[in-house]
């Protein structure tokens, strides 16, 4: 069998091309102007060529990038558009935001493809930290979930006070037959909202999602899409309040039916990616970012952010009672650690000693403390 000459030539072209590309990549990374180059080894690694192109006309391009894997809610609520410019200016850094569901954000970080995560699912965060992918998980802020549904409320949940009662009622009415118009739409995307929804079904020992559950729609989509689907189908769903406020004006068929239950609280945590697992990540900048979020200044910024005149997130980093109630029992120690840590020192110690199982057991009790404190 003869190898066609042109094919061989092409192979050579591919190899030469690949080599040229890699050389370009290498030089672009290493020659990026960087005022901090002398003080940190991370600058060269984290500058990438597209940065130098996209910012060529900027008077003073950022010297570093930080890849933040976060949830759609922090982006769609507008919080990051408000916070990040302050951070970027202050630390001369460009933040690249990957806006995914919490599950996907954590998966990306576990693969070593992000520097820091800002997410909202305790059930996914604790295994992420326990497996050594992230360090120094610390509470930043919270808002809450609300159960929304069609204004005529065919399942009759509007008078109920708790999420579990509302979900039970939706389930019962839906079981009575398809004719009564009860539909529940699930994100079904392992987002923070989705894991919260599943945990509520688990509490009432229902596991919807069988082929015969025609009332339960697994959308596999982001919050905005699911809210619009719910509006079109006159369905129930669980949403975070921030995204609801963002889209409320478009959703004329829907309204909030159940809110204010403590199980519906929605805490957000920031977790730098473990540098021992992924030494090539920008751990230093991840620490600076976490420190910024939990600093009194960052907390004030979060607390002052409003959407349509309403506060969207409530800062908790330095309110230890609230933090404990929201599932951050080690908050005082973690805050003390961040406050005393110089990001350049690259330390990840100590505090990795907490026992995960214990923390799970304490959760309900902590929620009680939190409720009492408010």
């Amino acid at each position, binding site marked *: *069998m003869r190898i066609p000459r*042109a094919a061989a030539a*092409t192979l050579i*072209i591919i190899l030469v*091309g690949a080599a040229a*590309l890699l050389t370009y990549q290498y030089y672009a990374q290493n020659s990026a102007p960087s005022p901090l180059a002398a003080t940190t080894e991370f600058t060269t690694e984290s500058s990438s060529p597209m940065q130098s192109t*996209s910012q060529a006309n900027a008077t003073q391009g950022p010297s570093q990038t930080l890849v933040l894997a976060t949830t759609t809610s922090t982006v769609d609520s507008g919080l990051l558009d408000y916070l990040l410019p302050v951070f970027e200016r202050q630390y001369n850094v460009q933040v690249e935001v*990957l806006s995914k569901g919490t599950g996907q954000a954590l998966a990306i970080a576990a693969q070593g493809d992000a520097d820091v995560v800002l997410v909202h699912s305790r059930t996914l965060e604790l295994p992420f930290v326990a497996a050594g992918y992230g360090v120094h998980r610390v509470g930043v802020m919270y808002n809450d979930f609300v159960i929304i549904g069609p204004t005529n409320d065919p399942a009759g949940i509007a008078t109920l006070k708790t999420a579990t009662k509302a979900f039970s009622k939706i389930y019962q009415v839906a079981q009575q037959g398809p004719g009564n118009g009860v539909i529940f739409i699930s994100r079904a995307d392992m987002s923070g909202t989705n894991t919260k929804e599943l945990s509520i079904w688990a509490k009432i020992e229902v596991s919807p999602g069988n082929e015969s559950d025609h009332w339960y729609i697994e959308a596999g989509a982001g919050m905005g*899409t699911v809210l619009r689907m719910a509006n079109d189908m006159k369905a129930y769903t669980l949403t975070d309040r921030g995204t609801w406020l963002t889209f409320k004006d*478009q959703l004329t068929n829907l309204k909030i039916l159940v809110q204010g239950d403590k199980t519906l609280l929605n805490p957000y945590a920031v977790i730098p990616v473990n540098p021992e697992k992924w030494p090539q990540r920008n751990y230093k900048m991840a620490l600076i970012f976490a420190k910024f979020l939990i600093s009194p200044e960052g907390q004030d910024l979060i607390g002052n952010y409003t959407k349509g005149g309403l506060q969207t997130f409530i800062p908790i980093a330095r309110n230890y009672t609230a933090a404990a109630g929201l599932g951050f029992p080690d908050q005082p120690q973690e805050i003390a650690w961040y406050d005393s840590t110089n990001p350049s020192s690259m330390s990840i110690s100590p505090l990795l000693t907490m026992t995960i199982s214990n923390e799970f057991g304490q959760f309900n009790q902590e929620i009680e403390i939190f409720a009492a404190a408010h």
Partner: protein
Amino acid sequence: MDQILEGLVQAFWLLVTLNHELYLILFLTLRVSGIAVALGTIVGIPIGASVALRDFMGKKLFISIVNTMMGVPPVVVGLVVYLFLSASGPLGILRLLYTPTAMIIAQVIIAAPIVIGVTVSAVGSVENGIRDKVISLGATKTQLTLTILQEARVGLVTAVILAFGATLSEVGAVIIVGGDIRWVTRVLTTAIVYETELGNFSFALALGAILLLIAFVINWVLTRMQWSGLRR
């Protein structure tokens, strides 16, 4: 209907007011697709032509594989490229994930099979008579190949047009390997997905109209090239 009209008006407005972000997105879209199609063509036409012009063992198998590759969902290509470029993948050390380069790599893998496949059929369908005639005129091997490629020109340009169409409209792969990062890796298609998710339908549609406009301009230029000198 109002939203569609509003979208078209917005598209026009964004273009004439030289909206900075739009032009960044537009430029990146053209850059990624353009480089990907160029590389795909450089690789694809020689391979396609040499496969069509020669007989070798496994020729039909090769063509079948190429034709299958033409139908592989781009999102699968994206996933594989992601796993290669991820920090935990074999090429993670290059740190190419979430860069335009990563998007170009995925797009080349999508474009090359299209160019190869169409080239094979275009070159393969050049009449044997032409071949014999050129040989009888005493042409060298290179001259023969060039003449056949010249004859297959319409088909070859079609290959490029199809590859351009595929890469311009591609969304699944670039969203995985590019991450749809604002200012960095957001292209027209991923911007449309993002704006649709936010419910900004007319803005999303405006971006769609602009995408169509670019596709039309590129096709128009290529089609003129394709048929120039062929009027009979």
